[in-house]
């Protein structure tokens, strides 16, 4: 949203030589790619290849063993606490189940980031919250508790909260998991709409082929055996012309793309 400050700023996120591990177990190593500003970017791959792991490292919930993550050219991994706080505020995250705070109403959920990080008076805040809820099609649901909503509504409410501070980047963890095809299509449309109105950079972890071909500008594909990125680019081009058979098979929904679970 901010005008580019320098040439480096073309990229919203740059990932350089990232290594992710749990204890001694290396899940990903040498992962490098970059997400352009204003792009809808997908991280795809079979079950257990480390998509969620990568996401947790990108948003700072886990420290990478090696490598750096930069947002708009600013180092996030080695940032001072204050700088880190500032960078955290430039992105929103939509968690897999919505992760709404269950003891608060939808209104309070969306209002909390505004309350903490803006000086808006109570009345303006309420208006912004109403706007965000309307944006995701939940106008009038402000007084509901998360437990009183269906899974799809919770997902959308989570999106409203992720958008509360008008972030430059929004991360989605498996947005369509557990949604019916029509609802997940609607969610895709919502994503496109937000992208079009706010120019937000969007990073989605998913293996929903329909969404990938529907809205992705670019994808990276991770692989469990390679422990890293095996393909990067336009999804349709990769489907038809990747030199890696695994990538073609995954995108064409044929078996053989994903190594059997539990195999070494």
């Amino acid at each position: 949203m901010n005008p580019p400050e320098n040439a480096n700023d073309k990229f919203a996120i740059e990932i350089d030589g990232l290594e992710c591990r749990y204890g001694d177990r290396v899940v990903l190593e040498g992962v490098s790619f970059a997400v352009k500003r204003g792009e809808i970017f997908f991280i795809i791959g079979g079950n257990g290849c480390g998509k969620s792991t990568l996401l947790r490292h990108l948003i700072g919930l886990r420290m990478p063993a090696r490598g750096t993550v930069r947002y708009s050219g600013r180092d996030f991994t080695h940032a001072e606490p204050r700088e880190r706080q500032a960078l955290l505020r430039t992105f929103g995250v939509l968690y897999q189940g919505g992760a709404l705070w269950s003891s608060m109403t939808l209104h309070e959920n969306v209002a909390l980031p505004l309350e903490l990080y803006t000086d808006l008076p109570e009345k303006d805040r309420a208006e912004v919250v109403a706007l965000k809820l309307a944006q995701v099609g939940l106008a009038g649901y402000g007084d509901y508790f998360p437990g009183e909503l269906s899974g799809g509504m919770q997902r959308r409410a989570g999106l409203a909260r992720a958008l509360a501070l008008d972030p430059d980047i929004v991360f989605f963890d498996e947005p369509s998991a557990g949604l019916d095809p029509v609802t997940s299509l609607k969610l895709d449309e919502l994503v496109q709409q937000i992208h079009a109105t706010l120019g937000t950079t969007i990073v989605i972890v998913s293996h929903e082929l329909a969404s990938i071909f529907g809205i992705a500008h670019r994808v990276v594909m991770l692989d469990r055996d390679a422990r890293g990125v095996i393909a990067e680019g336009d999804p349709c081009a990769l489907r038809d012309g990747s030199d890696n058979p695994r990538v073609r098979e995954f995108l064409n929904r044929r078996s053989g793309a994903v190594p059997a679970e539990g195999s070494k």
Partner: protein
Amino acid sequence: MSENKPQARAEAVREGDTLVVHVGGEWKITNPRPAWTSLVEGETVKRIRLIADQLDGWDSSLALFIREARAWSEAQGAAFVLEGLPAGAERLAQLLAQKPAKPPAQPHGLPDLFAVVGQATFKLWVEVKDIAWLVGECAFSGGRFFRGRAQFRWSDCVVEMQQCGAMVLPIVGLISFLVGIIMAYQGAVQLRQFGADVYVADLVGLSVVREMGPMMAAIVLAGRTGAAFAATLATMKANEEIDALETLGVSPIDFLVMPRMTALFLMMPLLAIYSNFLGILGGMLISWTILDIPTSLYWTETKSIIDLSDLSTGLIKAATFGVIIGLSGCLRGLKSDRSAAGVGQAATSAVVSGILLIIVSDAIYAVIFNSLGW
């Protein structure tokens, strides 16, 4: 219909070296089936022919039977031949016959003493580190709070205060009152033998104010509030709600732990005073009804024996217990597994470790106050 189909049956006929087994009827896993071992009891043969010529129906139970038969004949060193088995049943039996690639790991004998001691020590070390981590984080958070930079919401704190203050008044009151009655009753029986009835007031007053009041309040809160904290935080962790706070740049310590700790720290001494009062009231009731001590005398006696140092030791303990309950509840919640079982475990261990630490700290305080002469 299936009711009038014949039951599963198997008959063995010996023909020279060969045992011929005919199976038939309806084989269902929910119905009884013949056991192979009783069929071939005491037989020694070179060959087994299993003929399935009168089958009305079959399922996995037939496959189990065939597996048993095959295992037995292998043990006997006899050849095993299957005849007339439906193709599906044959495939099922083959799946069962496949040996697992790896033999199941032998259960270990008695675990090595050194290993057990080592593991227990390591676990203890990890727990000590966790407690130190949380205490340190809370200290930092307290520092931020006093500089006005903590993301601490008084509204949350007030809600928690209500939960661990006002809402527990009935149960804490009842328990303290009954404890007062019990102590007065026990004391009265002994003291009456010496004609020292009035000292019941001293006995009840001192033990309630110094020990039982804070302790009863703490134990009720450990069971109620400590478990609730652990379960709430563990559920929030399992639902990624805590992750959502962290990515918003909000410290879960400031936002979730500190309001709860503050609420307990402030409420516990108040609850202890309330509990003291009701305990003394219980003692008074018994003295009045059973020992015929006038309530005014009882009250004067109580006032003369309890001084400020007794009251303050009780209150210092109560505040400490509050911190302990909060720490163990929040720690178990924050460090729980992200699963339903993790939530249950967190709640249980919060109560157990909370009560344990309360008793331990009470013992430590007993030594300290004794040496200070309070």
